[in-house]
Every structure is written in C-alpha cells, then in structure tokens.
C-alpha cells in the first residue's frame, strides 16, 4: 500500500516497513509481537487517514499510528493471512480459525479500543481478504464456499459452493462477484443472489490470488503460470499470457499494460490489448507478492528478502528505481548492473 509517498509493506520475518516510496529509505519499522517463526505478514496493510491495520500470522490484529507506534493489538482465533479491510468505523479481518470478525472502532482518544461487533464462522480457514460492496461482505473460505455476509449484523446472505478451496479475494464489479478456486475454475456470480453467471475452466491449476478488472476485461492469474484475460460479461477467453512459474501475487495495470509477478523470478509486462509481452524484468528471485502501483512505479517483494521499485514508462520501458533488503538498513544505489 502506498499513501502520501510512503510504501507500507509487510515481510515474511514479521516486520511492517514504512519506506520512502521515492528513495527506498526506511522511515520506520515495526516488528510484530509473536515468535520469530510465527509472525510473518502475508496480508496487505489497510491504511486510513490516521492509522494502519495489520494482520499477522501470529494471530493478532495490530493498529499502528502512521508514525509506527502501536495503538492497539488484539488476538484473533487463528493466524491472519488475508488482509484487514476498513469500512467506515468497522474493521473486517479474517483468520485461520475460519472466522470473519467485524471490529467496531469504539474510541480513538485517548486510547484506541476495538470491540467485535459480530463474528461470522465458516467451515475452514479464511485466507482471503474481505471485499465489500453495497453493504455486503464477500469472502472465500478453504471450506470451498464463497460467502456473502450482511455488513451490519454478520448474517449470511448466501453461499456458493465451488469445487475447491478459495484463498483468492472476491472481486466485485457491476453487481457481480468474480473469484477463482482450487478446482481450477474461475466463477462469476450474481452479487445479490449468489447464482452462477458463468464459469471458466481453462486453467490447469489453482487460482491463489485475486483477479483484477479493467473496462470489460477480467485478468485472472493462476498457479499454472498463465494469466487469463476473460470477457467480463461472458467469461469468454480473450487471450492467455504465459509465464514460466506459478503466479502467486496479483498483477497491476500500468498505463495500457499489465505487470504480472511470477515465481519464475520475473516481472512480466504485457500489452493489455492482446497479452503480447512488452518487456520482462528478470529479478532472479521468486516474486510471490501482490504488486502495488503508484505513478508508473511498481513495488513488490522477492524471495531474497528484497523490496523493489521498478519504474515503467508508457512505452513499456522499465528501470530499477531502488532495491531494499530487509536485512540491511539502507537501500542499494540505483543503476546497478541487474537485468531489470
């Protein structure tokens, strides 16, 4: 998440970093309270005007000030993998106990206090981030279901059974919910009723992360290494872009291109129109994080404990802006001899 030129990003070592988005310099660092091997941050951070909300694999929800001070923390029923979502005075967070909890932000002065308003339980771990639209929360569960839950009271509106676990966050666009599952099927559901509108079953592996949409096209990344461009209304396959490894993190749209992270160690940049490759940035280390984009700069983490900023021009040219290693304090200088 980038806000006011600050990049907030969590690491597998359980650190939440605030980096200067322009230079890559460390502004502050907050280490989660759990044991060293149990405090990874998988979830994206939710940012409001005065606080950050972070879910940790140590099973805690943290509220931090924008300066990195701990304001509140509370234990949940299980490890957090999907990110918290803030809607008005509610914070929604899912965890590995299968629960989706809605916290009321009761007081902010002098101390923060979060009290649960309702808890919605599913049959297995919930690793997807909640998506909210029109007063309804949409969530996927490893119990193979996609749920629609009433935002105000936590009651179930509908559930849709897929053929596999669901870790991807649902995408809600124009009254439809789009989500892929472990059965290799991508589903389009009616947001009001949960009825299936169309399905695409062309993938050879699971959908792990969420899809993105642009105008009339949906871009669905799969662990089979392909990015599928589907017609939003019908699910018809428009084109497929192949990478050389599983796609674990979600892509982003940059100008009229799409940047796709792959576990093959490359950042693939393709034309939105037909999926033809425009450029490839070879990081050489697995990229498993969802990309974040701001003003033509793409931010992501790689397996070598690095956080990278790659600048992409409207013509598809890319250059490494900075790289920060989480086990060092300073970013490496730019213009290094790397293939990216």
């Amino acid at each position, binding site marked *: 998440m980038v806000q006011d030129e600050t990049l907030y990003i969590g690491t597998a070592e359980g650190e939440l970093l605030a980096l200067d988005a322009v230079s890559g310099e460390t502004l502050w660092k907050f280490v989660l309270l759990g044991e060293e091997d149990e405090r*990874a941050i*998988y979830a994206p951070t939710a940012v409001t005007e005065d606080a950050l909300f972070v879910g940790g*694999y140590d099973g805690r929800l943290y509220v931090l000030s924008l300066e990195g001070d701990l304001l509140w923390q509370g234990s949940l029923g299980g490890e957090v*993998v999907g990110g918290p979502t803030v809607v008005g005075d509610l914070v929604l967070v899912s965890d590995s106990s299968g629960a989706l909890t809605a916290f009321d932000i009761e007081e902010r002065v002098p101390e923060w206090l979060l009290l649960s308003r309702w808890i919605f339980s599913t049959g*297995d*771990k919930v*690793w997807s981030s909640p998506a909210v639209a029109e007063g309804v929360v949409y969530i996927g569960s*490893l119990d*193979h279901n996609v749920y629609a839950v009433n935002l105000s009271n936590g009651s179930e509106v509908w559930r849709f059974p897929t*053929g*596999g*676990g669901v*870790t991807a966050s649902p995408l809600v666009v124009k009254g439809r919910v789009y989500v892929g599952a*472990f*059965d*290799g099927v991508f589903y389009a559901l009616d947001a009001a009723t949960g009825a299936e509108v169309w399905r695409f079953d062309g993938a*050879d*592996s*699971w959908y*792990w992360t969420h899809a993105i949409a642009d105008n009339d096209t949906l871009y669905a990344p799969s*662990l*089979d290494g392909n990015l599928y461009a589907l017609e939003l209304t019908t699910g018809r396959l428009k084109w497929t872009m192949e990478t050389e490894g*599983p796609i*674990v993190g979600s892509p982003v749209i940059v100008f009229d291109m799409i940047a796709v992270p792959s*576990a093959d160690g490359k950042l693939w940049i393709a034309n939105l129109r037909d999926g033809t490759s425009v450029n490839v940035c070879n990081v050489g280390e697995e990229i*498993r994080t969802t990309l974040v984009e701001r003003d033509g700069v793409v931010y992501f983490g790689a397996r070598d404990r690095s956080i990278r900023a790659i600048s992409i021009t409207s013509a598809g040219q890319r250059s490494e802006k900075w790289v920060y290693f989480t086990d060092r304090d300073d970013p490496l200088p730019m213009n290094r001899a790397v293939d990216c």
Partner: protein
Amino acid sequence: METIAAIWNALIIGPMINGLVLLYSIFFDNFGLSIIGFTIIVRGVMMPLTVKQSKQMKSMGALSPRLKEIQQRYSKDRQRASQETMKLYKTAGVNPLGCLGPMFVQFPIWIGLYQSILRILPAQPESLVGLSKHLYPWLPMVNGAIPIDRTFLGLDLAVPNPVILPILVGVSMWAMQKMTMMPAADSRQESTNRMMLWMMPLMFGFFTTSFPSGLAMYWIASNVVGIVIQGFVTGWDPLLNLVNLVKPGRGQQQVATAAAAEPEKETPDDGRDRDEGKDGGRGDRNRAKGARRRTRRGRNRRR
C-alpha cells in the same frame, strides 16, 4: 543434483502425493484412513516379496539344527564352517540376505512418505502453494480435496506425537520382530537376535518422537499388516506363545519335525535357543519325538 531431484519427484513424490490425496477423498476426507489405505496398498504390492521373505525364514528355521551341527562340528575352523553353511544354504535353495529385501524396499517409501506428508499438510501458506505443482491437473479430485484435514483420532498428523505413537510403534515393531526373527544357529546369533528384537523397536520409537504422526501411522499399520502376513505364512506361534494361548514349545514342532528328517547330534546350548524352546527341536529325531510326546502329555494333563 537437480536431475536426481526431478526424477525423485516424478517417480516417488508425485505419485505418492496424488495417491494419498486421492485416497483422502475416497476415505471420507480422512487423512488417517488415507495413510492406512496407502499402507495396505504398499504392503499388497510388496506381498510377493514379503511372502518370499517369510518362506525363506521358514526354510531357515528348518535348517537351524543342521546349522548348529555345522557350527559345532567346525567350531575350530571358522572358514570351513562358513563354507559348509553356504553350501547348506545353496543346497536348500535359501538366500539369507533375501530376508532383507522388503526392508530395503521400504527405505525410499519412508523417505518419500515423510516428504509427501509435509508437503500435503503444510505449516505455512507458501508451502501450500508449493503443493499445487505436485498435483496432477488431469486428476480433478485431488485439486478439489485441498486443503487436507490434518487431524485423526485427535492427533495432528503433520507434527510428532511424543507419547502414544512412539509406544504403539515400538510395541508393533517388537511384535513384528518377534514374528520374523531368524532362527539362531548359535549363541552369538541368538544374542544378535535378542539385540535386534529390542533395538529396532526402541530406535523406531525414538524416531517417532521427532517425525510427523502420519509417518508413525504408516509404521504402525505396516507392522500390523506385516504381522498378519507373517502369521498366515509361518504361523502365529511366536505371538501366541507370548500370551500363553498355546503351550510353549508347540510353535517349534514345525522346526523340530523338519529337523527330524536329518540325522543330527544333540547340542549342548539348545535350551537357550528361542526357536527351540524348553522341550522340543533339538535337531534330534528322538528328542523331537520326545517333544511331541511331552506336548501330548501336556494336553492330557489339561483334560
């Protein structure tokens, strides 16, 4: 090295993971039953080898008195004793190393199963992503079965159980050792047997404290199946004698009878031999008959 890893994954890990997950979906989404079913299939595939091993042991048992005779006759010439022993094995069509076959086949299965369990029941989300590349896309059932429920009878199959399972592994392995123990030809071999009878269960019991419970489940199920196979091929006497369901010595009649076909001399250390018990199997026709007579008398006494 990467090529070896790729071959290992393609030939062992891939089929094992897909097999276990497929069994999981067949056995009502129960991974414990999946492992037990997998064990039965593995033991079924290895059945010809196991039966061959059991028959070899049975033959070895029949040769025991003659081996003793050789040991005694050439007690001062070890080389000759060794030559005569090999000659006897050859004549009888017995290969003493053949008994080790199933054990060697089991090693890659143990290693593969250990790796497969950890991949199927990952501790971290990124490990679950890694599982996806092992699942066959043409087998939709396996992809739909993920994630796997890791509990069975209150046990977490992905982590070690420090108390119950080590005991069960140890006890079942001890019983298995008891059933498959090679007949001793001399006191040295007897002490080796006795050491193996306790060493293996203790060793595997100790291993169990640090290996996933799922692997321990495999060892237990494998031992139980092995005991059953051995029981049907060579008889249940080693175990039945333990619980005193039959009179001690009855189990050795078979050996004694086989031995009775050969002219033998009485040996001084017979009484200490596990396979001959107190009464029978001295490798002597008369003593063997005597053993049978005493057994009958024992029966009469009970009446």
